[in-house]
C-alpha cells in the first residue's frame, strides 16, 4: 500500500485529523491546496485557545481583539449544516465587559449547533500582564455562566473553569436531562445553586468539583449519580462546611485533599470503590472523618494517611455507633491500596486500620519518597502486630529493596494465615521497568 502523501487519505480521515488541531491551525491549512481549502468548514470539533495568541510585547487587549475576531469569523463562515460535536474555548477574560456579548453569542451558536461536549475556560492568570494593559479593572469579576443556556440542549458533557454559575431562584428545574457529566473547576457557586444544578440534571452520572469557591455546604442529592470527585476544598474552621450526600447509585467516590467539618450520608448503598488523598501540608489537622462515609466499600485507596489521635478516636466512635462491633467496621473491604513512605508511625496506623477490615484479601503498598533512614531500634523491639485473617495477596509497588520494605515483608510473613503471595514491582529507574519479583509464594 505504502502511502506517501496525506492527500491519498480519504476526506473523512483528513477531517478527523484536522479535528485534533486547534481551530487556528485547521483554518490556516486551507492554504495547502484546493482540496484542503474548505475542509475546515466541516470540522465537527472546534478548539479556540487564546494562549496561542499572546506574544508578550503586544498589549493583551490587542491579542484579545484578534482572538475574538478569529472565533467570530470561524463560526460565521463554517458550514452550518455540519453538526458541531465539541466546542472548547480557552479565554483570558479579565476584561469581560468588552467581550461578554461576543462570548455569549459563541456559546449560543455552539449550543444551537447541537454541541455535545461544551468546555469553557476563563483562566485568570493566563498571561503575565504587560505594562500597556491599561484597561484592566480592579474589580475583576468572573464570567457568568447562566445555567439556563443549556436548557433543552444536546449538551451531555459540560466543563466550566473559572466562572460563576448563575441560577435565579425562580428558574424551573426541568429541561436538563441531556447532561451526563459535569466538571466544575475554580467555579463560584452558592450552596443553593449547586444543590439545584445536581438535582435538576436528572441523568447526571459523573460529577467533579475542584477548587470550588463561595460554597460552604455541599448538598449532593442525586438518583442517577455514579461517580463523584471532590477535590481541593478545605475549611480549617471546625464549625463550618458540610457534605451531605444522597446517591443510592453512586459506585465510586474520590476525595482529593477535601475536608469539611461535617459529613452526612443518607444512602450510599451502591458504593464499592473509594479513593482518598488526605491533606499533606504539615498541619496536624488531618481528619479521617471522611472515612465514616466509606465503611461499605470493597476497594479503598488511601494516600498520605496520617491519623491524628483526635481523628482516630473519632473514627472508632463512629464505627462503633454504626456497627455492632468496631472490628468489622469495614467488613466489605476486600482490596486496600496505601501510598506510604514505610515510616514507623505509618506502620502502626496501618496495623490499627487493618483491625477494622477483617475481610481484606488484597493489600497494595505503593512506596513513595526517598526516605532511606534505617528503622529505629525501638520499633524493631516492639513492632506493630498485623491482623488480617483473610489476606491472600500483597503487592508492593515502586519497590526499592530498602531495609524498611524488607522488614515489612518479614512482618507480613510472620502474621500470615492464608497469605499466598507477595509480589514486588520495582520502581522505574532511568525509564527502565524491571520485571516483578515474587518475594513469597505459599505454593512453593
Amino acid at each position, binding site marked *: *500500500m505504502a502511502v506517501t*502523501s496525506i492527500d491519498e487519505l480519504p476526506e473523512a480521515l483528513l477531517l478527523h*485529523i484536522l479535528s485534533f488541531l486547534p481551530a487556528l*491551525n485547521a483554518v490556516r491549512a486551507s492554504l495547502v491546496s484546493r482540496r484542503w481549502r474548505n475542509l475546515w468548514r466541516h470540522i465537527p470539533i472546534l478548539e479556540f485557545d487564546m494562549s496561542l495568541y499572546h506574544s508578550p510585547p503586544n498589549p493583551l487587549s490587542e491579542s484579545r481583539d484578534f482572538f475574538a475576531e478569529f472565533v467570530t469569523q470561524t463560526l460565521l463562515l463554517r458550514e452550518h449544516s455540519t453538526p458541531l460535536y465539541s466546542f472548547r474555548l480557552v479565554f483570558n477574560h479579565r476584561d469581560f465587559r468588552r467581550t461578554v456579548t461576543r462570548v455569549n453569542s459563541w456559546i449560543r451558536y455552539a449550543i444551537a449547533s447541537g454541541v455535545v461536549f461544551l468546555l469553557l475556560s476563563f483562566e485568570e492568570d493566563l498571561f503575565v500582564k504587560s505594562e500597556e494593559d491599561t484597561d484592566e479593572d480592579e474589580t475583576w469579576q468572573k464570567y457568568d455562566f447562566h445555567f439556563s443556556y443549556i436548557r433543552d440542549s444536546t449538551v451531555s458533557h459540560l466543563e466550566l473553569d473559572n466562572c460563576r454559575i448563575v441560577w435565579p431562584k425562580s428558574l424551573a428545574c426541568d429541561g436538563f436531562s441531556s447532561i451526563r457529566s459535569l466538571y466544575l473547576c475554580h467555579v463560584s457557586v452558592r450552596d443553593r445553586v449547586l444543590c439545584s444544578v445536581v438535582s435538576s440534571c436528572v441523568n447526571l452520572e459523573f460529577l467533579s468539583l475542584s477548587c470550588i469557591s463561595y460554597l460552604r455546604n455541599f448538598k449532593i442529592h442525586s438518583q442517577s449519580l455514579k461517580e463523584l470527585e471532590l477535590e481541593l476544598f478545605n475549611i480549617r474552621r471546625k464549625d463550618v462546611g458540610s457534605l451531605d450526600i444522597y446517591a443510592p447509585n453512586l459506585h465510586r467516590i474520590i476525595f482529593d485533599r477535601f475536608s469539611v467539618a461535617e459529613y452526612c450520608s443518607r444512602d450510599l448503598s451502591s458504593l464499592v470503590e473509594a479513593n482518598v488523598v488526605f491533606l499533606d501540608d504539615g498541619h496536624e489537622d488531618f481528619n479521617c472523618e471522611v472515612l465514616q462515609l466509606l465503611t461499605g466499600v470493597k476497594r479503598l485507596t488511601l494516600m498520605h494517611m496520617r491519623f491524628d489521635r483526635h481523628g482516630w478516636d473519632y473514627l472508632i466512635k463512629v464505627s462503633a455507633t454504626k456497627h455492632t462491633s468496631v472490628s468489622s467496621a469495614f467488613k466489605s473491604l476486600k482490596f486496600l491500596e496505601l501510598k506510604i513512605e514505610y515510616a514507623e508511625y505509618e506502620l502502626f496506623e496501618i496495623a490499627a486500620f487493618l483491625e477494622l477490615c477483617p475481610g481484606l484479601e488484597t493489600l497494595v503498598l505503593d512506596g513513595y519518597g526517598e526516605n532511606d533512614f534505617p528503622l529505629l531500634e525501638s520499633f524493631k523491639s516492639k513492632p506493630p502486630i498485623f491482623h488480617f485473617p483473610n489476606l491472600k495477596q500483597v503487592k508492593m509497588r515502586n519497590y526499592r529493596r530498602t531495609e524498611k520494605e524488607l522488614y515489612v515483608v518479614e512482618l507480613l510473613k510472620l502474621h500470615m494465615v492464608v497469605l499466598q503471595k507477595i509480589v514486588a514491582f520495582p520502581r522505574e529507574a532511568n525509564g527502565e521497568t524491571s520485571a516483578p519479583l515474587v518475594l513469597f509464594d505459599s505454593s512453593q
Partner: protein
Amino acid sequence: MARKNRNPVGKNVDPEAQKKKTRTLTLKSSDGQEFSISESAAVLSIAIENMVEDDCAGGVIPLPLVDGGTLARVITYLNKHAEDGASDEEKRKFDEEFVSGMEMGVLFDVVLAANYLDIRGLLREVRRRIADRMKNKSVEWVRKTFHIESDFTPEEEEQMKKEFAWAWEGVDSDVDD
C-alpha cells in the same frame, strides 16, 4: 445479510469468550504474508468480527488493502489490547510508545489500515499523532512533509490570505522544525 447482536468489544463474559481465546485465525496481507492471531484479538477489529460472524472467512481472512509490514504492526496492537490482565494504564502507555516512533509514511499506512479494519482505539491514537505533528506548522511545512503539490497560483494564494486576513493576524509566525 442480517447482523447478529454483538457483544461490546472486550467485554465478553460468556463461554464463547473462552473459545475465542484459544481459536486462532489466519490473516493474509496484500503481499501474501500470513499471520496467526487469536480470535479474541482479531475481533477487536469490527471489520474482521463481521467477516467471522458472517462466516465468509473459511479459515484464512484475506486483507487485500493492507500490506504485510502494516499488518504486523496492527497485530502487535491487537494482541496487546486483547491481553488478559493488561491494565488500562499499561495499554495507554503501550499506545503512546506504539505510535511515537513511527515515521509519517508509516502513520498514514496504519491510519488507513485502522480505518479499513475499523479499529476505533488505534484510529484515534494515530489521528491524534498525525495532528500533533501538524500543530503550529506553516503551510509550506505541511506541504513538504505530506508531499502535497500546491495547485494555487501565487496570486490566488495572496487573494486567499487577504480574504482570510482574520486568520493570519495577531499570532506569531509558525514554528517549523
